């Protein structure tokens, strides 16, 4: 460290921290002897060959670059539609919309608790009408669309396609839809039985009707942002995925079909070799488990499919332009780890929502990586590195051990119910903070190489667009007034019955309700009631449908 030490000390400075950032001990050098036991074909193999350690495609980026997918969404569906078109002009190749907080919490924009939060962190999607505005002028049957949102939004998207005469079979994209990790990101305890049902039904519906759609993306990113390490990220994520596979199998779906539909949203941090090794380990572990434990045979099922998101919690408020460098290194790690899709966060992440400029720099970061650095030329450039192969093995072994521990507890649902996961997250966040406060973990600008607040650059800040939000609220009011009440009630009654029976797939009923202009809160609330939960997760409002009260 620099402060208070002489030049001689600095000249001979050695890094204090010698483990990986996930605290895995590593040696100062790795040799051929460290990989003596490895069998190339069995353990590593070529890209595109089982167990896919080196990548799921033989040519990797020569065959197809990763999808550059910047997240957007604010103010209103109309404003977000304009931002999507702007990003398309800037060269993004996949669209990525994040719902605002009420949408993520699956409540309406005019819920008493939502008032101040509409259009702040994302875009409001309260009805099919909002989805129509959001996708206006965007060829839904051509683009790949990702939603950071839950099952009713998938129903809105399918309904919007149907309204435009596009078959759901043509829709390409992903919805996060992970209602199992939900409580760790959105705070309230989304009922686990309901979460499993929505996950299973989304997967089931997509197996039958949406060949190009990923209806469930395990949200490892959100979990990682709590402060857990790379191994915990993999183990918790896999535990969620395996739970879903088990539940889908119980419903009679085939493992090859199920696993083909599950994707992962991964975090990616700045420890370049560890992160690249993490993705390599994840591919091998997924393929081997699917094949050996579940008997999957199709490549699509054996492929570990993931989007990566550079870490938001790793960006630093102080000297924020430095974040551009952090994000670039993380993005490099994701690409060397063979990511299929990526979102790079904006450098102003720890300050405010992204501005047009910071969002553009985030896209440019990926473009420089893709077109200038040359990393795309050769698949798995780190393959065969004594260190990275070794670290890949280490991460895989540790993940396997931790998963076995979760299995012993009775699986992920038990680990959540007993708050074991909560404690793991809290402990991780606490330990991380201690390491930062003590200076063991050096974070430039944060606990080292600090400048005074006065010297800090003024950052342009994205402003909330109140006019646009107001217009969204007026539109929602109009939708409520103008919709055919009889048709709506009919759809809601059917949805209630189907939810109660537990047999039929819920997605068609949700799409029908969406087409009858039911709101996101009404759709979710009705299903909640059928399951015996309160209509409103916050207990503030009752169902507007007479005779359906608890």
């Amino acid at each position, binding site marked *: 460290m620099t402060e208070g030490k002489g030049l001689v000390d600095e000249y001979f400075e050695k890094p204090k921290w010698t483990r990986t950032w996930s605290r895995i001990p590593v040696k100062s050098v790795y040799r051929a002897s460290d990989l003596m036991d490895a069998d190339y074909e069995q353990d590593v193999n070529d890209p595109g060959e089982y167990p896919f350690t080196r990548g799921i495609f033989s040519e990797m980026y020569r065959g197809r670059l990763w999808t550059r997918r910047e997240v957007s969404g604010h103010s209103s569906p109309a404003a977000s539609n304009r931002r999507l078109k702007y990003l398309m002009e800037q060269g993004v190749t996949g669209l990525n919309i994040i719902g605002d*907080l*009420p949408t993520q*919490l699956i409540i309406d924009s005019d819920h008493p*608790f*939502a008032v*101040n*939060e509409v259009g*702040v*962190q994302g875009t409001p999607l309260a009805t099919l009408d909002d989805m129509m505005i959001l996708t206006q002028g965007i060829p839904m049957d051509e683009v790949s669309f990702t939603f950071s949102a839950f099952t009713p939004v998938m129903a809105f998207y399918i309904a919007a396609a149907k309204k435009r005469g596009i078959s759901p079979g043509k829709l390409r994209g992903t919805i996060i839809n992970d209602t199992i990790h939900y409580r760790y*990101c*959105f*705070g*309230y305890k989304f009922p686990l039985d309901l979460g499993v049902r929505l996950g299973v039904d989304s997967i089931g519906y997509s197996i039958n009707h949406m060949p190009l759609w990923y209806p469930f993306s395990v949200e490892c990113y959100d979990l990682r*942002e*709590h*402060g857990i390490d790379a191994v915990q990220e993999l183990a918790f994520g896999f535990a969620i995925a395996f739970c879903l596979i088990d539940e889908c199998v119980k419903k009679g779906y085939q493992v090859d079909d199920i696993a083909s539909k599950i994707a992962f949203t991964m975090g990616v941090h700045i420890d370049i070799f560890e992160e690249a090794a993490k993705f390599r380990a994840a591919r091998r572990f997924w393929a081997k488990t699917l094949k050996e434990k579940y008997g999957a045979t199709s490549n699509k099922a054996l492929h570990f499919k993931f989007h990566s998101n550079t870490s938001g*919690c790793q960006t*630093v*408020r*102080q000297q924020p332009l430095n974040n551009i460098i952090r994000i670039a290194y993380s993005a490099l790690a994701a690409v060397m780890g063979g990511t299929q899709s990526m979102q790079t966060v904006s450098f102003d992440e*720890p*300050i*405010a*929502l992204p501005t047009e400029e910071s969002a553009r720099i985030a896209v440019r970061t990926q473009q420089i990586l893709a077109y200038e650095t040359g990393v795309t030329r050769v698949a798995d450039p780190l393959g065969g590195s004594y260190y990275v192969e070794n670290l890949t093995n280490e991460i895989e072994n540790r993940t396997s051990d931790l998963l076995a521990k979760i299995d012993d507890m009775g699986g992920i649902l038990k680990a959540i119910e007993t708050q074991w996961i909560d404690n793991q*997250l*809290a402990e991780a*966040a*606490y330990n991380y*903070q201690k390491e930062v*406060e003590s200076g063991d973990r050096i974070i430039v600008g*944060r*606990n080292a190489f600090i400048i005074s607040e006065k010297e*800090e650059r*003024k*950052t342009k*800040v994205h402003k*909330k667009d109140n006019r646009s939000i107001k217009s969204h609220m007026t539109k929602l009011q109009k939708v409520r007034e103008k919709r055919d009440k009889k048709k709506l009630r009919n759809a809601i009654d059917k949805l209630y019955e189907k939810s109660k029976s537990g047999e039929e797939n819920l997605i068609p009923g949700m799409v029908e309700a969406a087409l009858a202009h039911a709101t996101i809160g009404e759709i979710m609330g009705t299903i909640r009631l059928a399951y015996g939960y309160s209509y409103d997760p*916050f207990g503030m409002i009752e169902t507007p449908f007479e005779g359906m009260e608890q």
Partner: protein
Amino acid sequence: MLERRIRVLFGKVGLDSHYRGVQVLSMMLRDAGMEVIYTGLFQTPETIVHTALQEDVDILGLSFLSGEHLVYTEQVINLLKEKGLGDLPVLVGGVMPKEDIPKLKEIGACEVFRADTPMDDIINYIEEAVKERSPEITSVSN
């Protein structure tokens, strides 16, 4: 005079569900010998002020990462004044632009700590602020 520990109330108002910061800070303050009462998520200004009254706290901290710090801080502070707790120091923390710091102070926040503030700075500030208001209170446990 009987010595007692500093009692801190942390609250999250509205739908913002980013709780990592406030959770870690709570643990750190406990390590520093303070008593921390955390409301949990999804509070309203009313429930926060109600808890402040019930728990007889020395300082209130509000955490925001959703961009709604100005609206909610004002609502909480106005309600505190209404309930006769106008002198309770109110700290604001989280993710917010620098230009909002003077605005928050104008509303009545005693101090603003943005993300990535060293924990020691926050601990020291709380100790000083509470000492100024009630000199008999200490942060040393036992």
